[in-house]
C-alpha cells in the first residue's frame, strides 16, 4: 500500500509587498510506500516544509492532487488527521505545562478518554525513556528531552504515518544519535516515517528512501545507496611533491578507468570508476615515472555528490544561497 501519492502538487505564495509570487513547490510527484523511513533532503528554502505542510492538511495546495493514507487530502482532511502524526520543527508543546500534561492533552484531542490518554502517556514515557523529566515543565527541558516530548505527542494516537520536520536541527551530536535510534524503533513498530532534513548524514544514515528537492522540485529519488551508485565514480586523491604535480596529473589522466583528473595544490584529484580496481594500476605508473607518493585517499560518492550532479552545485553552497536570500528561507 502507498502511504502518500501526489501528482503535480504545487504551491505558489503571493509575494510580500510588491515582490513577485514565490513558487515554493512545483509539480511534485511523490510515491511513499508503507513502512520504512522516507527522507526529504534539500537546502533551506527547497520546498520541503511547504510540501509537508500541505500533506498534513495545514496548507491548501495551489494545484495538484494528493492521497495520504488512502484518503483524499482535500475531501477527507478530517478523517485523514486521525491516521497521521506531525512533529513540526518548533515542536509546539505548551512551555508552561509538563511533558506528561502535554502528552495527555494530545491524546484526548485525538478522542481518547482521560483514563486511556493517561495509560497511553505512561506507555510513551516508558518507551522513550522520559520518566526522569516528564513531570517537569517543558520550558525547563534540554533540547534533546524536549524533542522526545514532541515526538511522544506525535505518536499518542498511534498514527500510521508520522511526519517529522527537521527532527534533529539544533541538537548536539550525542542527542542526534539518540534521537535517530528512537526514530528507528518507530520503524520497527510499523510506522511509516516521513521526515525532512538538510543534513546529508541524517538522510544517509537514517532513511531507507530519500527524495532530493531543490527550488521546489524533486530532482532525484531512491534509496541512498542507489543514488550514490548512480553517480558512478569514486574519488581518489594522490598527494605528490609540488613540482611533480602537473606531471602526475598528465600521467594519470590517460589511465584506464580514470574519468577526470585535476590539480588541487600538491595533489591530483581523480574521478574514477570502481576505485578499488583502478587504484592498484595507478600507483605503479607514478612509481615508474619516479614520482614519490606522499599520500593516497579514496572516497565513495556521498549524497553531496548526488546533489552536485543533479543540481549543479554543492549542498553547502545551496544552503548558503538560501540563507542569503533571507525571506525565502521562511517558505522552507
Amino acid at each position, binding site marked *: 500500500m502507498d502511504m502518500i501519492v501526489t501528482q503535480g502538487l504545487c504551491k505558489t505564495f503571493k509575494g510580500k509587498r510588491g515582490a513577485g509570487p514565490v513558487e515554493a513547490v512545483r509539480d511534485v510527484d511523490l510515491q511513499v510506500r508503507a513502512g520504512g523511513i522516507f527522507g526529504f533532503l534539500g537546502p533551506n528554502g527547497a520546498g520541503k516544509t511547504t510540501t509537508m505542510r500541505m500533506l498534513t492538511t495545514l496548507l491548501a495546495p495551489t494545484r495538484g492532487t494528493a492521497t495520504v493514507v488512502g484518503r483524499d487530502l482535500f475531501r477527507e482532511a478530517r478523517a485523514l488527521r486521525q491516521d497521521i502524526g506531525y512533529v513540526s520543527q518548533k515542536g509546539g508543546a505548551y*512551555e508552561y505545562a509538563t511533558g506528561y500534561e502535554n502528552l495527555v492533552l494530545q491524546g484526548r484531542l485525538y478522542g481518547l478518554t482521560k483514563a486511556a490518554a493517561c495509560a497511553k502517556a505512561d506507555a510513551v514515557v516508558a518507551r522513550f525513556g522520559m520518566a526522569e523529566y516528564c513531570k517537569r515543565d517543558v520550558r525547563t527541558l534540554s533540547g534533546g528531552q524536549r524533542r522526545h516530548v514532541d515526538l511522544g505527542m506525535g505518536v499518542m494516537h498511534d498514527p500510521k504515518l508520522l511526519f517529522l520536520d527537521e527532527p534533529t536541527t539544533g541538537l548536539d551530536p550525542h542527542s542526534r544519535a539518540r534521537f535517530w535510534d528512537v526514530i528507528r524503533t518507530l520503524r520497527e513498530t510499523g510506522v511509516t516515517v516521513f521526515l525532512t532534513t538538510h543534513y546529508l548524514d541524517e538522510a544517509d544514515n537514517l532513511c531507507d528512501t530519500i527524495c532530493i528537492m531543490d527550488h521546489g522540485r524533486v530532482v532525484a529519488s531512491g534509496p541512498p545507496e542507489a543514488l550514490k551508485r548512480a553517480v558512478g565514480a569514486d574519488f581518489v586523491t594522490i598527494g605528490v611533491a609540488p613540482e611533480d604535480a602537473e606531471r602526475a596529473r598528465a600521467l594519470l589522466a590517460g589511465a584506464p578507468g580514470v574519468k577526470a583528473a585535476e590539480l588541487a595544490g600538491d595533489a591530483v584529484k581523480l574521478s574514477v570508476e570502481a576505485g578499488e580496481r583502478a587504484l592498484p594500476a595507478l600507483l605503479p605508473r607514478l612509481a615508474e615515472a619516479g614520482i614519490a607518493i606522499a599520500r593516497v585517499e579514496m572516497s565513495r560518492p556521498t549524497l553531496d555528490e548526488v546533489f552536485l550532479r543533479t543540481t549543479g552545485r554543492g549542498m553547502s553552497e545551496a544552503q548558503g544561497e538560501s540563507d542569503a536570500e533571507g525571506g525565502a528561507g521562511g517558505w522552507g
Partner: protein
Amino acid sequence: MKLRTGLPKIAADTWAQYVLYLKIELRSPFWILASLFQPVCYLYLFAPLLKNVSPAGGGADDIGSINSFAPGLLVMVALFGTLFVGYGMIEYLRSGVIERLRVTTASRLSLLLGLVLRDVTTLLMQTALVFVLSLPLGLVIRPLGVVLVVGLMVLVALVISPFSYSIALLAKNEDAMGPILNFFSQPLLLLSGVLLPLTLAPLWLRTLSDANPLRYVVDASRAIFRGDLSDPSVWIAFASMAVLVVIAFGWAMRQMRKATE
C-alpha cells in the same frame, strides 16, 4: 474505538484544553493578582475624585455614586481584563502550538473556545472582586441584577477575547500588538461614559458615543443596578453583544486558520 463527532466532540475537546489552560494560569498566581490590581485602584483612588462631577439632579449619569460607578467599572474590567489575552496567542503561534493543534483531530472551534473560556473564567474572578470591594463603599445589589450584569460582562469578554486573538494572529509580534489594541480600546473606553459622564460632553461627542456598543453596555449595566430592566439600553446591549460575539468568533477562527498557512 468509537470516535465522537459534532457537539460532544467540540465539548470534550474544549473541556480538555480549558482545564489545562486554567491549570497553567493558576500556577502563576502573581499575574492573576496583578490583573486584580487595576479595579482596586479605580475603586479606591479614582472613584472618590468623581464626587464633585455628578450632574445636578443625579440620574443615570450620576457616577459620583458607587451604584453608578461600579457598574461602569465592571465594563472597564471586562474590556481591559480580556483585551491583552492575545499576547499569549503570539507566544503559542511562535512556538508552534497552534500549528500542532491544527493537525490533530480536535474540533477547530474548540481550539478557540478553550482559550476564550479560560479568559471568561479569569474575568469572573475579577468581577467578583469588584463586587466584594464595592460593597463596603455602599453598593446595593439584587440577585437578578447580579446575574444579568455578570451575564452581560461574559458577553463582553466573549467579544473582546477572540478580538484580541485575531489582532494577535494578524500582528504576529508583540511590538505591533500594543499600539493596535490601544487604537481600538482608548476611543471605545472614553466614549463609553465609564470614567466621566457623557452628559458633560458636547453634543457631537455624545452623538459619536451613540455608535459605541460599549456605551450601551455601560448604560445597561447601570440601569440593571438601578433595577430598571425596562431601560432600552438593556436589550440593545444584550442584542448588540450577542451579534458581536458571532462576528468576533468567526473572525478569530478565520485568522487561526490563516495564521498557520
